[in-house]
């Protein structure tokens, strides 16, 4: 599939150095998978790391590497929202406007940013700094409202913090995610990481923010822990747990529950809990 005479047969317009580098990276991607076709998604991220979007040349390059048609590559590239069909800004600023973030203030943040920047959804500022997007739930609901910059978390935003953030990005100043690397990299640099080429920044930033630790903090304060393992009842490594009397014929675990209250036996039941 990695046709050797690629350099002479390519329909792409990449210069020789760029093409050689892309080919080496794409080959490394394909080697991660039993079937090289699995490398198409990371390969499209790779193309974006060079061109800043999925370009015509990028599509042809992927097709040539995988021995499939350009139409087959386009079909995939148009399915996923992270692949951009026109040049992206240096920073994608995504405001979560799915229900929870929207209600908590995400709608106001998006409207303010849109006014402030003079662009709408999936539009880029004239200086090429920012592409503004409405994004869907990004799994940070306990930090709502959330803004993502090049897919790094900016938690608990307001219209004021979000416009200040955008202003810094336009001025080319570093911005620091709430939970992420020590600064936000460019769209192209981000795309290279998403293609599976680490940038050595995994150790930057925090492990968790306050909401992530909310339950753990209460457990620590109140001395709550998970139950201890049954120590001493089972010599380690000699008796698998399957010999323990759980779920064995005749045990209570075999009994089919007849009512919802059957699932509550022995638990902390409150008065009226049976009523659904």
């Amino acid at each position, binding site marked *: 599939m990695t046709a050797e005479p690629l350099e002479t047969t390519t329909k792409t317009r990449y210069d020789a150095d760029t093409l050689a580098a892309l080919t080496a990276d794409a080959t490394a991607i394909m080697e991660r998978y039993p079937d090289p076709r699995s490398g198409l998604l990371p390969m499209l991220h790779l193309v974006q790391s060079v061109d800043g979007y999925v370009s015509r040349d990028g599509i042809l390059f992927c097709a040539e590497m995988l021995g499939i048609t350009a139409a087959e590559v386009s079909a995939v590239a148009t399915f996923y929202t992270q692949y951009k069909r026109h040049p992206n800004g240096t920073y994608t600023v995504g405001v979560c406007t799915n229900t929870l973030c929207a*209600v908590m203030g995400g709608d106001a943040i998006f409207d303010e940013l849109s006014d402030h920047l003079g662009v709408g959804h999936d539009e880029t500022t004239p200086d090429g700094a920012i592409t503004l997007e409405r994004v869907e739930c990004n799994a*940070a609901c306990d930090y709502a409202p959330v803004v993502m910059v090049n897919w790094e978390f900016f938690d608990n935003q307001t219209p004021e913090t979000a416009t200040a953030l955008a202003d810094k990005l336009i001025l080319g100043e570093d911005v620091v995610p709430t939970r992420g690397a020590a600064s936000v990299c460019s769209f192209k640099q981000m795309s290279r990481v998403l293609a599976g080429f680490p940038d050595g920044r995994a150790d930057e*930033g925090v492990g968790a923010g306050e909401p992530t630790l909310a339950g753990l903090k209460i457990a620590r304060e109140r001395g709550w*822990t998970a139950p201890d393992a049954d120590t001493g009842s089972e010599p380690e490594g000699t008796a698998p747990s*399957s010999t323990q009397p759980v779920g064995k014929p005749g045990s209570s675990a075999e009994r089919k529950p007849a009512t919802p209250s059957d699932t*509550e036996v022995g638990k902390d039941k409150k008065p009226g809990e049976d009523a659904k």
Partner: protein
Amino acid sequence: MTLTPVLTDTWDKARSWRLATYERAGGYAGLKKALTMDPADLVQTVKDSGLRGRGGAGFPTGMKWGFLPPPDGGPRYLVVNADESEPGTCKDIPLMLASPQHLIEGVAITSYAIGCDHAFIYVRGEVLHVYRRLLNAVEEAYKAGYLGKNIQGSGFDLDVTVHAGAGAYICGEETALLDSLEGLRGQPRLKPPFPAVAGLYARPTVVNNVESIASVPGIVAKGADWFSSMGTEKSQGHGLFSLSGHVTRPGQYEAPLGITLRELLDMAGGVRAGHELKFWTPGGSSTPIFTQDHLDTPLDYESVGAAGSMLGTRALQIFDETVCVVRATTRWTDFYAHESCGKCTPCREGTYWLKQVLHRIEDGAGQEGDLELLLDLCDNILGRAFCALGDGAVSPITSSIQLFREEYQAHIDGHGCPFDPSASALFPYTPKTRTPGALAGAGAGGH
């Protein structure tokens, strides 16, 4: 009921994501023990523990492993579903950011149990730092001999590939995820055959959620009965409950299954000051909504199901009385219409029309009969597509019309939304009137 930190227990340590931190806390004891066991006994241990899928469906994890056909000499795969995208769901992403080794150890144990020598972690592409942490965790595990060739001298080989998606909710559906991982558009496959028989590259494949796999090391190290000592009789073990929205202290609360929202809200400082609970989701936007009538419903698979919803991903989104249920439902519907992959007509066309009707109601142009029209559309989507996306799309609509029909009717009769959206926000602001109908008067809006 008290909280039971297991997966969360190391999250407050310095550099919690590093292998050394995880090992100091007893990490990889499960793998070392597993490698001395017969793989079939490992599967039995997980069956005995009662662990059920933590990605939403709640299928027994050990039974899923047991569905793989006998080895035929060809490859078998483990694919971890780390494409967490269900609105409201925010547990796997913080887990992988804070403690990715929990997942990697689970991957190693599960792979050994099912006879897999190449596992994949499919993480959504929109979480850059989580992807960095996962790549780094895998690299650390290779260097320490927990992955790679002849792991811990056992003769067991395992490679792990961490794969970033590119933005598509549907790829959280297991067969769409497999198509995506094969380099295709992420569209669900017809089942059967199930992935256990013909999954990745048409080979026997186990697809499990992050939290399910991360729960495996504890079960192996501490025993099935340790795990099943938590939770209810049919919904066993610990789970991450994610509180978000109008709650004083939103966040992750790891508790035995069967805890109630009332108990969790007590710990989280209650609904935001000066407000009261209006509606909530027990397990993400695809699960029918609940009200304060369900505060004492035990959050286990059976009880939530008996009460008319689903435990789902334990994504408890809390909305107070300032929130318009039509606005909330309309936005979720926008999401499903956007994320419908287009393969099945009822879902593709149905979500499109649901969106049109809901928008005109919210914007003040609703007509008599629109609620019946919505319910009829829902009836023509539910159960009529390959995957559950369409089913999820109708859940918030049918449940909210059932519980708040008069509020929908007020939008139609009053020709607009009676709520002030700024009252729901966490900061004061003046809504911009650019959006037709957002605050506009009678007759405004439409499309």
